[in-house]
């Protein structure tokens, strides 16, 4: 077991615990940068997809994991980010300006929507955002002159500092772009959690009443959280648009919203790691299933029978098992395993046991 010997108060708020932890993450980053030379093009594309999902997961994590506001409508913000990015580029705005602008725009729209949504909490907010996500589909169809409606929009590649970045033409450059954005967003997230704003997010999540008593402006905190969350989600949406190359009103359906929320639950709510773990599960599950199905049909015959809804059925079952047996998600499981080895003979079974709680109504006092 490593014991960090603290000699300075700054050590408590440093983003990393000690040099060992920092070097582990630097090695991870180096491997990620070198990935194009280690993987073939297909898996590189899948990895890019995972990173994009991770960015979207980080966006939702701010809101759901750290501020405690469940949103079932983040696909709407993915759509806003994606469409505004492409529309700006079509208007001749260079990518390097259009991309941040798309995120900012999504953030502003998100914060504006948050103002009426502030009066809602818990389940009502989830419903509000769910309705938003359903409406987004129709809004895109109705504003056809701008969005292209059902026919959708296409984007081939973008120019960044003289380089053409294209999902199919230059997948390696596209991967590095995604990786750079992921790293920037993650660093920003880590820093956010060290600021008073980030701490007030967590205070609001744990108890609104106590946060208010401690002088946290709940309305402002929630609005800012919503805005930041939507901004990051907007960036993820813009990248998704570039990744898929073509999209229309059905690309960002309610199902994507639900998938996004489930992803961060599987990964582990309230941790940055969780967004990445969840993205890996979401990104590789379809591939894993199709490979598994091939193997099964090779053994039992039957050829490649398409079972509609299989992916979602399996996904639902995984999620049910997680919520029942590992509510802290993959990251929680990892923490337990790590603690087991760090404390080796002294780990006890109920070290991470949750405190028993009893539910009280939100209706009536």
């Amino acid at each position: 077991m490593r014991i960090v010997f603290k000699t300075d108060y700054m050590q408590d708020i440093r983003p990393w615990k000690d040099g060992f932890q920092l070097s582990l993450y630097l090695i991870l980053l180096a491997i990620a940068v070198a990935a194009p030379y280690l993987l073939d093009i297909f898996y590189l594309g899948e990895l890019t997809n995972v990173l994009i999902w991770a960015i979207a997961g980080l966006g939702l994590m701010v809101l759901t994991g750290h501020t405690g506001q469940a949103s079932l409508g983040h696909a709407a913000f993915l759509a806003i980010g994606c469409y505004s990015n492409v529309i700006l580029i079509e208007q001749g705005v260079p990518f390097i300006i259009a991309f941040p602008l798309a995120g900012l725009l999504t953030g502003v729209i998100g914060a504006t929507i948050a103002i009426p949504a502030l009066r809602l909490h818990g389940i009502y907010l989830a419903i509000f955002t769910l309705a938003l996500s359903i409406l987004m589909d129709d809004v895109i169809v109705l504003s056809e002159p701008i969005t292209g409606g059902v026919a959708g929009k296409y984007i081939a590649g973008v120019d960044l500092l003289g380089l053409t970045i294209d999902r199919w033409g230059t997948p390696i450059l596209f991967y590095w772009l995604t990786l750079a954005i992921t790293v920037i967003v993650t660093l920003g997230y880590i820093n956010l959690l060290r600021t008073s704003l980030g701490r007030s997010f967590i205070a609001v999540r744990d108890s609104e009443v106590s946060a208010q008593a401690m002088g946290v402006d709940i309305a402002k905190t929630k609005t800012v959280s919503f805005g930041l969350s939507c901004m990051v989600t907007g960036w993820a949406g813009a990248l998704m648009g570039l990744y898929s190359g073509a999209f229309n009103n059905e690309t960002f359906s309610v199902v994507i919203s639900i998938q996004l929320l489930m992803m961060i639950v599987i990964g582990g709510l309230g941790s940055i790691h969780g967004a990445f773990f969840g993205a890996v599960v979401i990104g590789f599950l379809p591939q894993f299933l199709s490979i598994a199905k091939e193997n099964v049909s090779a053994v039992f015959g039957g050829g490649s029978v398409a079972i509609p809804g299989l992916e979602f059925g399996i996904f639902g079952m995984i999620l049910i098992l997680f919520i029942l047996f590992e509510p802290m998600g993959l990251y929680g499981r990892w923490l337990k395993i790590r603690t087991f080895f760090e404390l080796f003979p002294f780990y006890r079974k109920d070290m991470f046991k949750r405190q028993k709680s009893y539910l009280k109504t939100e209706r009536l006092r």
Partner: protein
Amino acid sequence: MENLQLLISGLANGCVYGLIALGFVLIYKATEAVNFAQGDFMMLGAFVTIGLTNTEYMGLPFMVALPISIGLMALLGYLLDRFVIRQMFGESQVAVVILTISLGFVIRFVAGLIWGHNPQTLQNPLAGKDLNFGGLVLGMEDVAVIIVTVLLTTVLFAFFNRTKLGLAMQASSQNQLAAYYMGIPVKRVQGFIWALAGAVACIAGILFAAKGAVDPNTGLLGIKAFAAAVIGGFGSLPGALMGGLIVGVIEPFASRYIAAGYSQVAPYALLLAVLVFRPHGLFSQVRVKKV
């Protein structure tokens, strides 16, 4: 006349929404959890009944199949509570929401495996019969839907407000710990309410399948019923029915009088408006939280 016709068909549709919403509200009222899989329960109930009655499956007489399928769905509701939902006892609402959404995925998958993905209708004795009131044509199914819904809502309303068990359910949702102290078997009460919700979902499913076709994705109708429950105010049984009727009536009128493309937006736009201006529904039960 045309408007009246629209109104009647809207009311019949609204009753189905109202019945699903009733299932939401039952569970919410008694356990403070929201069952996002209620729409899928309804779909499953419809398919179980189809499996029992339709000639290409088991071909039982309609009146025999009816209680069996309602009983089966009630049993399923109870078992789900016993083995899945009860593990979540005292956990946050959002965790339960995610759990029930994924349950819905699983139910849809299983139903698709068993009954396939083609739309099917329920063969029932009322099919194809009409009532004619001086030019106003009513399908017998529509009439049956309206009658059953009103009856069911009245009975459930009386049950919650008049009987000891109903009061125990309300008490156990308002404060689990205090309910324990009062000697209420909170867990058993929860199991009972899930069984009841399963039965109500099955009735809704039967009515829906008698009126039109069901396929595994019909469960997504639950979202519309959800809007209904919220518009009426979660936690109020008459509110749920009212919300269902409002959504049901708005739909045909919107598609008749508003330009195509805008009409399907109407229920959700109404939902957003209600949430913004009356956040806890028309029949609100929420008070400000004080310390």
